């Protein structure tokens, strides 16, 4: 177990600036999720931590030691890959014990460790099978087994669940979290799925176009997003945004609606800004009118996409609302649960 300190990390591919001044400190035993859209640099960062990509600038410490120039095998990390990367010509047992065999551990020790890991992951019946004889979920468990037999300082997961179907993803999510609670090894987990990030992480690092947008606990990011990108990325369905100006202590949107401001918003009269409302905090019975376009009942909740001055506006109600397309809905929102951002910089006001 170890801390991971990422200080002023930079990555250039030729002239392309892939990662720009990344700073993240990960505590011992913490589960940190790097999340962001494709191409935001999260996988590159993980590969740099693993030692599979060179670091152009900055400093990377694992367990207090600078590891910038160490090859992967000397960093004492284990990694789980998106497409499992199991060795096809080796059995499950051989796959899991491979790193120990390379390390020249005694055979009986390897056997004991592999069996222990197999037991944890319910793979004990499959040790003599080849990867091609396993299902996707089993393969992913073998990949995790390969990582845990090493007893590394840090686990790295590179989108490990994206190749699985939705149901399996949910159960594997629980398994990984359970495993972390049991082993308490520092874990860095990359995903593009904000649901995965929210449910698994102790802390989330939201990345966008090579920079860190915000770092924080899942609910902090949800409650107090630092900018419009994080606000739009975290939470599903995504937050509704409206551009407008502050008039008479209220937000006057360009689409014609008017909203009360949260008490902590630092805005001035006449300032142009972006106003954000999460669909799940929209309440029926306010004074903003919206014309229903689509109603999507799921049983437990009702999602309604409405038209507000030519813009789509999504609402999510916990109760069942019998609105038909074309109906006009009166809605509102608790101002303390709304967000105001600078229209130019996108930063929270």
């Amino acid at each position, binding site marked *: 177990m170890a801390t991971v300190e990422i200080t002023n990390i930079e990555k250039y591919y030729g002239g392309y600036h892939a990662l720009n001044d990344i700073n993240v400190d990960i505590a011992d035993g913490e589960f940190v999720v790097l999340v962001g859209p494709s191409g935001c640099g999260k996988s590159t960062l993980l590969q740099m931590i693993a030692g599979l990509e060179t670091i152009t600038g900055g400093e990377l410490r694992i367990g207090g030691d600078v590891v910038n120039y160490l090859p*992967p*095998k000397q960093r004492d990390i284990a990694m789980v*890959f998106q497409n499992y*990367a*199991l060795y*096809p010509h080796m059995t499950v047992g051989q796959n899991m014990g*491979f*790193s120990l065999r390379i390390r020249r551990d005694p055979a009986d020790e390897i056997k004991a460790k592999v069996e222990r890991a197999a037991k944890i992951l319910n793979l004990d019946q499959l040790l003599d099978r080849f990867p091609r004889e396993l299902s996707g979920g089993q393969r992913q468990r073998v990949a995790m087994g*390969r990582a845990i037999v*090493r007893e590394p300082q840090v686990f790295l997961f590179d989108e490990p669940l994206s190749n699985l179907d939705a149901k399996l993803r949910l159960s594997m999510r629980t398994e990984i979290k359970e495993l972390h609670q049991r082993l308490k090894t520092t874990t860095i987990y990359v995903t593009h799925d904000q649901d995965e990030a929210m449910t698994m992480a102790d802390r989330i690092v939201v990345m966008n176009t090579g920079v860190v947008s915000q770092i924080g606990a899942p609910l902090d990011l949800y409650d107090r997003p630092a900018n419009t990108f994080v606000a739009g990325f975290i939470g599903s369905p995504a937050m509704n945004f409206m551009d407008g100006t502050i008039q008479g202590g209220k937000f006057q949107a360009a689409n014609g609606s008017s909203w009360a401001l949260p008490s902590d918003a630092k805005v001035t009269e006449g300032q142009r800004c972006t106003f954000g409302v999460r669909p799940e905090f929209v309440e029926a019975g306010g004074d903003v009118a919206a014309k229903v376009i689509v109603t999507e009942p799921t049983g437990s909740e009702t999602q309604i996409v409405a038209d507000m001055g030519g813009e789509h506006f999504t609402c999510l109600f916990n109760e069942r609302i019998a609105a038909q397309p074309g109906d006009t809905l009166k809605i509102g929102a608790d101002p303390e649960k709304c967000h105001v951002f600078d229209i130019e910089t996108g930063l929270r006001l």
Partner: protein
Amino acid sequence: MQSEPLDPGLRKPWNFVLLYKYLVLGFVTLLIIAPLITTALGGFKSAADLRTNPFGLPTVWHWNQYTDILLGIDYWRYMGNSMLISAISVFVTLLCSTLAAFTFAHVKFFGKEFIVGYLMVGLLFPVATAILPLFVKVRDMGLLNTYWGVILPTSAFSLGMSILLMRNMFEKLPRELLSAALVDGCGYIRFFWHITLPLSRPILATVGIIAFVASWNQYVLPLILLNSEERYPWPLGIMEYQGEFTTDWHLILAFVTLTVIPAIVVFLATQKYIVAGLTAGAVKG
């Protein structure tokens, strides 16, 4: 469970596609088998019989022509020489081409594409044009009339094709396998030995067979580079049956038939992997 056709009357009386396939395959098989059989049968005929009846069965079966060759010392010497030259050539070719192909597939370095291109040019290089400079070079190295004098040029000529085939195969291995192996504690050499080579058996077998057959059938290079009959491989051994004015064709046919056998044995031994290579794609990471 076997399913019965719903209405036997509707079934097509002839499957023409299948028939066509069998006809074509049969024709191709005939093209390959006929000369082999003619050769093998020719070895049983007398010289006169061969002249008057080149394609039919022998009127009298001269078994002694085969047994004489098999019991004589020359045949085994030629075969031994051929086997030695071919085996070492295959080994040298596989060793150099796997290492080179692996480097080209996985290591980034300046001038890589140029060197690959240079090697590929070797594919276009006919042996015949190289004979004189090759002879001079081999002579200068003091390797004239030695096995290595034949083995090294033979391997060199196989390298271009071998590297091309292997590099393609190595590049097709999922990139994550390398990453996983590096994280698991391998360096490039261990990755090559523990992961790349075991996964490349089909291509090793294919390249090995190509190199073996090329070396086995080599005529011009040994002819130029070997002087003493003691070191002749089998294609030069045939000359024993060629006089200034006559050629014992029936003995040559018997001899050739016997020399084909090792090549067939090697093919059968590696066939499993070659077929596996054709059906690959099973490497799914």
